[in-house]
């Protein structure tokens, strides 16, 4: 997500048009980030909308333009994890198949492997791996965005990497069986 500092500055000064630009530039990435954690597109879009609304309400509190990136992802990730907390008592969403899988995707063994691997991770582990490897945060930035201590982030990241590597390797060596 590459947002010019000038737009962020205008957002802090509560310029409506700047917020629209910010939304346009970051909406897609925000939804995909949430989807990687939640594995459910409707929830991902809803969480991204909530995060943008929260950001909009609190935008005047952002003092440092350079801190925007971390601040934005902190709101996004916390909103996603709040969603997890809310839905945990209702249904295990990971057990539901993707509703928008098309035939190409279903035929793609590699994508299914990645999906399987991601589903084996806890939400916290997904958050760690997404912040570092998808968003491109350093571990310190990711820990700050997630609101964890660095050691906790490293632990979760390491677990996530281990599981991802293991599942993908297993699939490559032995083939994958899916019901």
């Amino acid at each position: 997500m590459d947002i010019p500092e000038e737009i962020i500055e205008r957002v802090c000064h509560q310029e409506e048009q700047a917020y629209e630009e910010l939304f346009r530039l970051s909406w897609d990435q925000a939804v995909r980030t949430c989807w990687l954690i939640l594995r459910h597109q409707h929830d991902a879009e809803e969480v991204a909308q909530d995060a943008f609304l929260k950001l909009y309400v609190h935008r005047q509190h952002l003092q440092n333009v350079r801190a925007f990136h971390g601040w934005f992802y902190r709101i996004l990730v916390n909103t996603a994890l709040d969603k997890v907390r809310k839905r945990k008592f209702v249904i295990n969403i990971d057990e539901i198949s993707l509703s928008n899988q098309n035939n190409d995707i279903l035929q793609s063994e590699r994508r299914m492997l990645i999906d399987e691997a991601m589903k084996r991770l806890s939400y916290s582990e997904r958050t760690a791996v997404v912040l570092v490897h998808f968003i491109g945060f350093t571990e310190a930035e990711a820990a700050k965005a997630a609101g964890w201590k660095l050691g906790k982030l490293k632990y979760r990241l390491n677990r996530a990497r281990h599981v991802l590597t293991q599942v993908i390797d297993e699939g490559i060596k032995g083939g994958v069986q899916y019901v």
Partner: protein
Amino acid sequence: MSDVFREALMEDAARIDVSQMTWQQVKQGRGRIRKKNDWRRRLFFYGVGAAGFLIIAIVASGFVSPVMAKALQKIPIVGELYAFDHPKLDQYASEVNTSATDQGITVSVSKAYYDGRQLYLIYAVEVPEGYKPTNLPQINLTTTKIQLDGEPLSFQSAEGGDSLISTNIYRGDVYWDLSSEQILRNGTLTIPIHQVGTIKGNWTLSVPVSNEKIDKATHYEFPQDASSTYDGITLTVNKINKGPVHTVISMQLRQQLPANGKPKYELGLKGMNFVVYTPSNQALGGEYIGNQQYYAEKVGNEEVWDVTIKCETPSENVKSIIVEPVLRQEAEDGVSGNCPHLTQLAVIIPLDDENDGD
């Protein structure tokens, strides 16, 4: 950054077709939802009023029965205040319902889990209209000077935070990894809070905790032959405490020291992590817990490191768990690379059949 993981995530993220939306649509969409729900509002407010009255009655009584707590968990917002997101943890946690009000702000603790080694609390902060939140958690219990039966709560680490769950309620949870010398079966926590957000005040909460229920359900095992040796290191599992929620594993690592030069592996908290999993590869976590020996101790021509970790307790049908060391590898700029697993040192720990309840 590892390209393999990035590529995998990029590919994974690319599989969805993100709806094209504008900010105006999002804003208006929320507006429409609000209008649509206007007719329900009165009913909702009556409902909230009734729920509020119910909560006040419960808080005033200072007690929530398990049956009532289960019922409350089903109510949106209220339910969140009464449940941990870990079902087993939630099952063994106790309802507390203690609260304090000052400056128009009510801070309450609704649930506590205490097993002598760990403490988890759920808290809520109810703020008045016009309250200006901070970007940080509204209260920071991890730095609050908490007492347990009049003595400062001694802990290794703490983490937690809160977030807004309704227009005026923040919900948070906090976790403390307690120092192992402070193990009490029962006690009362005294939590003095002097600041909520930017508002100074006095909120003192008393939270009774007990680990009796968890202690009764915990099995202590001393596995035989749970050991493995590889490349000059021996890992031995000496003891496990299999609790209903967490299993604590006490281990020792010994490494032969070469006559000249440095040992091959760095034993100690900076050099190694552990992962625990079931034979079917279900991850159970693996985190340091309690007082830790930061570095290995030199004994004769060996380095010895005693270490204790915790993991989630697997389901009853799991007959064994596997603990595996992971080397920590730090690269420049604080970005760690792929940490290699010492799979050759993995130790299989049989779980006692008596626990199966057959």
